[in-house]
Structure formats: C-alpha cells, structure tokens
C-alpha cells in the first residue's frame, strides 16, 4: 500500500501534533526572510537608479557611517533570531521528549529496508500501521550503516545509528497513508529504502492486528512473548531465575528491574533502560550488578538487532513500569560529543524528561 501521489502541494500533509507547530514556525520564518530579502533587493534597486553614475569621472560622496546604524542592524536581527531560536528550541524539546503515555514501537534499519515491531510483537517491513491520537515512541537501531527515519507528514526525523539506540515520537492526527523515507545516505538502494506509514482509527488498527497484520507475525505472538521464547532458548533462565525458583542464583532476578535504579559492583548506579539491558547482553562485564560474579558470557554475534529488541521488550514486560517508556529520552542517548558517553550510553544520566523515572524503592 503506497501513498497516493497527492496533488501538488508545497506544504506537505500535516498529520501529527508536531506538524502544525513546525508549519507555524516555517511560515513565520518565511515571512521574516521575505521581508529582509525584499528590503535588501528594494534598497539595491532604489540606490541603483538614484545614484547611477552620470559622468565617467564622478565619485561617490564621502562615507557617513553613523554607529547607531551599525548597532541597529546588528541588534535587531540578533533579537529576531534569538526569539525564533527560543520558539524553535521549544518545538524541538517537545519533539525530543515523548509523553508519559507513549507506546513503544521498535524499528531496525538495514540495507535497504525498515523492520518494525509493534508492542504486541506484530512485525512489518517498510510499512508501519499506527493508531490515530496515540503517542508512539519509536526506538531505532541499525544493523549496518547509519540510516535515518523520516516521515514528512509528521515532521519527524531521527538517525538510526549502529551500536546505539535513538528514538523519536509522534502522535498522528489524521488517518491516511504517508511517505516514509530513509534520509541518511546508506548505499546503492538508498532511494528505495522508502515505505509508508498508515494511520488508522483505533478499532481498525485492532482489527488489523487481530488479522495478523499485512507484514506477518501471528496475532497474539507479542514481541515480549517471542522474547520470552528467546529467553528460554538462549538459556537465560538458567541463571536469571525467578524469585523462589530454587537452585543457584548466579544472575540477578529480572522481575521488576526494568526502569529501576540498579546498584553496580563498583558502587555506582545506573537506570535499567533499553541501552543498559542491551549492553548487559552484549557486554555483560561492562556494568556488573553488585553482588554477582562476572560469569555471564557475551551474546555479541549470537543475537541479531531484532532479537535484541525482542529480549529487551521481554525484560521490559517483567518490569514494574510495563510498557511505559523508560526515562524521558525522546531523542536518544548521549552522543560522543558528551565525551564520556558510552557506546550504548547506559551510565549517562538520562537527559531530564518530563516523564518521571519509575523508581524502585
């Protein structure tokens, strides 16, 4: 199902809560730009005719450069820009921090396709179905190079960077089928890494899920359920026993861990979020939980990005917070610009978000 080639329209369909904000910003910016362009062009044209050279030996009058004029045309544009900066930054902050009731979806970029996972485990490729009026947080990862997830109608974009999680959120406000592009050049078929987002009424969406979706994945076979199967197959259960399961407890109990503060062997604490769980699977010794021996083997190379998402989803489902987003990271984990940031930056304090950390007492 591809978006219908709409009639020619410069401002694309505004189909999310964010779109109207961005469009308003654009319109005001365009008017400001237009004003200055017309001002400069107008002055040039006026001066050109008014001060046309009339005699080959003619020279201009001596310069009069009043300092107030220089100050005025430095300070006024600066003031306008700072006002626009504040407005634009507030919109950005809004797009960066998902609301507390956002529902978790996962997307994995791969040369040259997008793979999606719904909260219940339904999977799709290059097409994403979402319910209307529901905030959705999409966690992005990549299996190879950097991709970028872009839905023009929602005015959202976020890179999918291999080796770390990033995320974006949106709340669709108009049903329909919209373009989805990859905007970070990723190789031969970059321009074919496109798809669509279908926004549906909640009831339709439920029906769609119930029918198993178009992209496969049996109904009810949720991400967390397939994650549970994976958890068993990989033998995680052997060490990470449930409480009271008896036997030797070599690894921490995972029930109720997700979203809580975990005390580490070196005395520090981290928030058990997507990135931390991911790091603990791939590089278990990096941030060892206090009281346990470094006996867990790495699963690097044994689980794919998709399976990682399933495992994390399962661990999340064991947590107290359930499907609520952990922390307030709308954009992503800290980048390397924040120097000490980890590869999957589990120990950086989550950039403050409005959603409260669900803390374990």
């Amino acid at each position, binding site marked *: 199902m591809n978006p219908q080639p709409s009639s020619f329209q410069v401002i694309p369909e505004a189909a999310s809560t964010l779109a109207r904000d961005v469009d308003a910003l654009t319109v005001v910016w365009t008017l400001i730009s237009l004003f200055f362009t017309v001002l400069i062009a107008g002055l040039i044209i006026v001066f050109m005719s008014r001060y046309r050279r009339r005699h080959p030996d003619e020279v201009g009058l001596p310069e009069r450069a009043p300092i107030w004029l220089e100050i005025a045309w430095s300070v006024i544009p600066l003031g306008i820009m700072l006002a626009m900066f504040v407005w634009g930054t507030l919109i950005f902050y809004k797009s960066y921090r998902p609301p507390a009731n956002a529902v978790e979806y996962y997307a994995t970029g791969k040369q040259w396709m997008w793979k999606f996972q719904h909260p219940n485990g339904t999977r799709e490729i290059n097409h994403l179905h979402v319910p209307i009026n529901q905030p959705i947080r999409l966690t992005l990862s990549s299996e190879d190079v950097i991709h970028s997830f872009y839905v023009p109608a929602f005015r959202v974009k976020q890179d999918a960077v291999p080796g770390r999680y990033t995320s974006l959120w949106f709340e669709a406000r108009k049903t329909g089928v919209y373009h989805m592009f990859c905007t970070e050049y990723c190789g031969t078929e970059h321009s074919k890494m496109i798809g669509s987002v279908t926004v549906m009424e909640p009831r339709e969406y439920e029906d769609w899920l119930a029918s198993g979706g178009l992209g496969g994945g049996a109904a009810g076979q949720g991400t967390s359920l397939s994650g549970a199967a994976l958890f068993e197959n990989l033998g995680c259960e052997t060490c990470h026993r449930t409480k009271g399961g008896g036997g030797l407890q070599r690894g921490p109990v995972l029930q109720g861990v997700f979203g809580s503060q975990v005390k580490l062997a070196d005395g520090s604490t981290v928030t058990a979020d997507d990135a931390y769980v991911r790091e603990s699977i791939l*590089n278990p*010794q990096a941030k060892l939980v206090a009281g346990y021996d470094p006996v867990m083997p790495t699963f690097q190379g044994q689980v794919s990005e998709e399976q990682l998402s399933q495992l994390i989803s399962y661990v999340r489902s064991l947590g107290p917070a359930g499907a609520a987003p952990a922390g307030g990271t709308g954009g992503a984990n800290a980048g*390397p610009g924040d*120097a*000490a*940031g*980890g*590869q999957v930056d589990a120990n950086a304090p989550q950039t403050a978000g409005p959603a409260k950390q669900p803390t374990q007492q």
Partner: protein
Amino acid sequence: MASSPLTDTHGHGAHHHPALAHQFDSLDQQKESSTLGMWLFLVTEIMFFGGLFLAYVLYRGRYPEAFLQGSNTLNVWLGGLNTAVLIGSSWTMVLAIWAAQVNWRKGIVIFLILTMALGSTFLVVKAFEYHHKWEEHHIPGKLGMFFNSPFQFAGDEPQHVEIFFSLYFIMTGLHATHMVIGIGVLLVLTILAWKGHYGPEYYNPLEMAGLYWHFVDIVWIFLFPLLYLLGAHVH
C-alpha cells in the same frame, strides 16, 4: 616618494647576503617571515595530532579498563629510555644552533650528527618495541593478519584493547614518520653546514629545523604518559 628603485633587487647588489631571497628587503624580514611560517606550521601539526588525541580521550573515557590492560603490555623502561633519548637530542639540536652563533662550523656538523644519531636510536628502540608487539600478537586488524600475527588478547574486552592498540600504532607511527622526516631535513642541513652555509649572521634554517625537532619531541612527551604510564600507579 621615499622608496628605493626595485631594479636593485634584480641585480642582487653587493650589499645583499647571498641567502636573501628576492621577495624580501632584508635578512631580518626574511627571518621573521620564516619563523612565523614555522610556528604556523606547528599550529597545523598540533591540530593534526589533536584529532588523534580527541579519539584517544573519547575511547579512554569509554573503555578505561581496556586501556589500562593495553598500557600494561607496553614496556615502560623502553618508553622511558626513548623519552630520555629524545630530550637528549633536543639538547644537541640546541647546541648545533649555538655552534652556529659562535661561528664554530665543525661544531654545527658534530651536533647535527649527534642529533640524528639520537633520533635514529629512538627509531631503532621503537622498531624493537613494534617487533615485540608483533611477537605478542598485539597488532590490530588486518595489519596483524598481513604480518601473520592475527590479533589476540587474553584479558577482558579484547576488542576494546584492540582499539587501544590501533591508536597506539597510529599515534606512535605518525610520530615516527615525523622523526624520519626530521632526520632527513637534518641530513640536508648537515651537508650544507659542512659546506659552510651557516654562521653567526645566517643560521635561520637550523633554527627552523630546531623548532620542528622540539615539536616532535613534545608530541612524544605527551604520547609517553598517555600510552605507557596508565597502569603505573596500579602496581
């Protein structure tokens, strides 16, 4: 118009030093120009190595344990010896310039040869260290495979230790390249000094080469603790 006719500079009048280039009015101006040029070149070198130091700082912050382990495999004594050798070579470099200032032409040649000898000693020691790394299978990536010594590391986080060794080889390798270029420059200057080009009134090239040489030393002064001494306080 208070100016001299430019035609004079065409003919290189007798009052001009033979080393004075046509675009300059005086040896002083020429010297000031080359000194400024050299310092600017050193600024570009700082930015060049700066990129590597940035990568080092980032990964050391991220993988402190791995960097500690990697650092512990390096031979602090050989590194320390090389530090001493380089500081010594900076001293002989300064003496070569001093010899020019006091018009001791033989001295210039002697001290330049000493500087080159110390520089070469550094490179030989470095070569032994590289060879040792090869024996220990610490050469990262395809380079290790190419030399028939694929990377192996027994401790934790071998991948991250490999990043340490990548940076180790790139940083010390580029530093060594600078040493080789420096020795080449000194070789040319030695021949010119032998022919009597330099004396108290003109020793500018020696000074410029000296600036470069000291800079390369200083880079090593930073590399040595960053690469070799990470684990020293642990023992």
